[in-house]
């Protein structure tokens, strides 16, 4: 292809630079859209789905009973659960016999779809608002039970269904 022939003005570049400057100047008085992330965080809406985490109830008990439904439903197979027996000596609802020994969510696999939250019969897993999950190693992104519970905190349970089972 032939190059276009440049006029004298074109070869000077000055008109182009001035036009560009004008575009920039035009924007200075306008409203700013850019946010200073990470100093300034996003305001997330109520239904936002961040990383899935585990919660405790108001009595401090782990709510998950390791039914493994979330493990089953999780489309990218990010959840891995190791079921175990709940310590019967602990002052918990005696009828909940199961509790996960370990609960691993691989955040490199999770697609934040929220299926686990939806399927959970115990309201034990929630997609909270954490979205900036980063680490130096893949293993750091495999969140184990303790870490998940720490991220999840307490979820007030108005029903406490096991009381009346």
């Amino acid at each position, binding site marked *: 292809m032939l190059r276009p022939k440049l006029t004298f003005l074109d070869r000077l570049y000055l008109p182009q630079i001035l036009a560009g400057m004008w575009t920039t100047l035009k924007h200075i008085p306008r409203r700013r859209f850019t946010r200073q992330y990470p100093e300034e965080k996003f305001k997330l809406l109520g239904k936002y789905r961040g990383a899935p985490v585990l919660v405790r109830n108001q009595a401090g008990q782990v709510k998950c009973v390791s*039914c493994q439904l979330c493990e089953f439903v999780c489309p990218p197979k990010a959840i891995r659960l190791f079921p175990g027996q709940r310590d019967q000596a602990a002052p918990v609802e005696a*009828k909940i016999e199961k509790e996960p020994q370990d609960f691993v969510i691989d955040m490199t696999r999770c697609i934040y779809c929220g299926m686990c939250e939806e399927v959970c*019969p115990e309201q034990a897993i929630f997609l909270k608002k954490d979205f900036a999950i980063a680490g130096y190693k893949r293993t750091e992104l495999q969140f184990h039970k303790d870490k998940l519970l720490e991220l999840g905190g307490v979820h007030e349970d108005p029903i406490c269904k096991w009381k009346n*089972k």
Partner: protein
Amino acid sequence: MSESTVNLTIDGRAVRAVPGTNLIEAARLAGIEIPHFCYHPQLPIAGNCRMCLVEVGLPKLGADRKPELDSQGQPLINFAPKLTIACNATVSAGMVVLTRTPKVIKARRGVMEFLLINHPLDCPICDQAGECRLQELAVDYGQGCSRFVEEKEHKPKRTPLGPKIMLDDERCILCSRCIRFMREVAGQDCLGFTHRGSRSTLICYPGQEPATNYDLNIVDICPVGALTSTDFRFRQRVWFLKETPSICPHCATGCNTVVWSREGVVYRQTPRDNPAVNQCWMCDLGRLNYKFINDPNRLTTPLIGGQPANWLAAIAHVAQRLNAIRATGGQIAGVGAARATTEELFLFGKLFQGLESKLLDSVPRSGASDKLLLNSDRNPNMRGAQLAGVAANPPGHRLAAIADGIASGAIKALLVLGEDVTSAGIGPDLLAKLELLVTIDILPSAMTQAAHVVLPGASFAEKGGTFINAKGRMQQLNPAVASPGQARPEWQILSELLAAVSSRALRDGQPRAANAWKKPAPDFPNLGKVFAAMAAEAPALADLTLESVGAQGVQIKE
């Protein structure tokens, strides 16, 4: 109509059944499911769950005892005013059974509602979830929501019934299958109900606990999660498990089983129906005999002189050493476990045919037997070992000759397939005299300590093959999980060894670097070929193929 059957109609479908057949079985013949909880084909009828209610009508008989006909010439049917339980009603000529009328549907819904009144809805923590009849039938026939607002009845939970079983009385639907099994099949009358009505509770008689070798079958037949096995409890949800039909390798009965595994780990074994062998039961010894499959100590790499080696080098080394010993006039003996498959034992026998040695035997292994299933012969495949020409008759009677041969120095090499011969009269002192001791096994033992070459094999759940049980029934194993590390099925090892021993490069017995030897193509690249060769040689297996053995096995010719 033949003399020994009667004709009836179930939901408009004509069914021909043997008199004495109950309506649940007759409906099954017609492909109709009558929901039930307490009925079990192998147990006496109790008729206490009332889930199997159906409408039953019989032809109306006239004064002459002949069926009265309507204007179209069809027999008039007299329907019973009340519903009948199908499990306890037997077929009779001209009977008409209706299983889907509004009356029946309403009755089932009522029964389901009653059953669920006191049943805890704790499916998330109940191990039966996923294989629970109550769950399934509640979805199929229940009404989907509860009208019960009162407090549920509370009963004992987590009651151990002996070390193997855990009882949760709240989940029990009082079908009495376990009571009948323990009384009629296992022969220990130890379970019963106390209290009445909705307070009825399953208990074990004071001072007793189920203590037979068949207790865990009550866990299988319990339609709900009231009885769970302490071994499997809370270990894995059943919907993750892969079911592989297999054969129990614990004794010569060869109960048909299902191996339940997930991602290479075996979680449990349960019996599989086979009327010719085990009906639908299996013994606890066999059932719990699976833990060795996932033993962390499993052998995973071939070892030459205790050093890890690759398969090519190990096979070449064994072949070359065997040929060298034979060239110098040393004798070679073999012991093949009757726990190996028939195919493996056949290849083992072939190997010794090639080496021109008749010094072969299996180690007999026996234990207590009982009247139900457990056989005193604890080798699952002694018949196969004899058919393959490995085991002597009676088994083990050539072992003394082998021991003497080793002691006198005539036998210089011993090949052992899956056996610990130190407990069969060939002790470590004798083994130390050998120039070559090769053992193919799955777990470390005194043998693998003493062996010059160790070849890691596969457990019964990791390979195909056949066993021939004490009654001469040939049955098939199927691979459920992968072998750990480099371990591989024994038939593959033996087929390669067979090819290597006769390969021209190794026949002179001269030491060679492993890479100076090119692996010959084995004659038996797959199990089908092994079986075909075996069937061609053994008259008892004439006309059989591996496929024709099928899921239920075949009786071999005597």
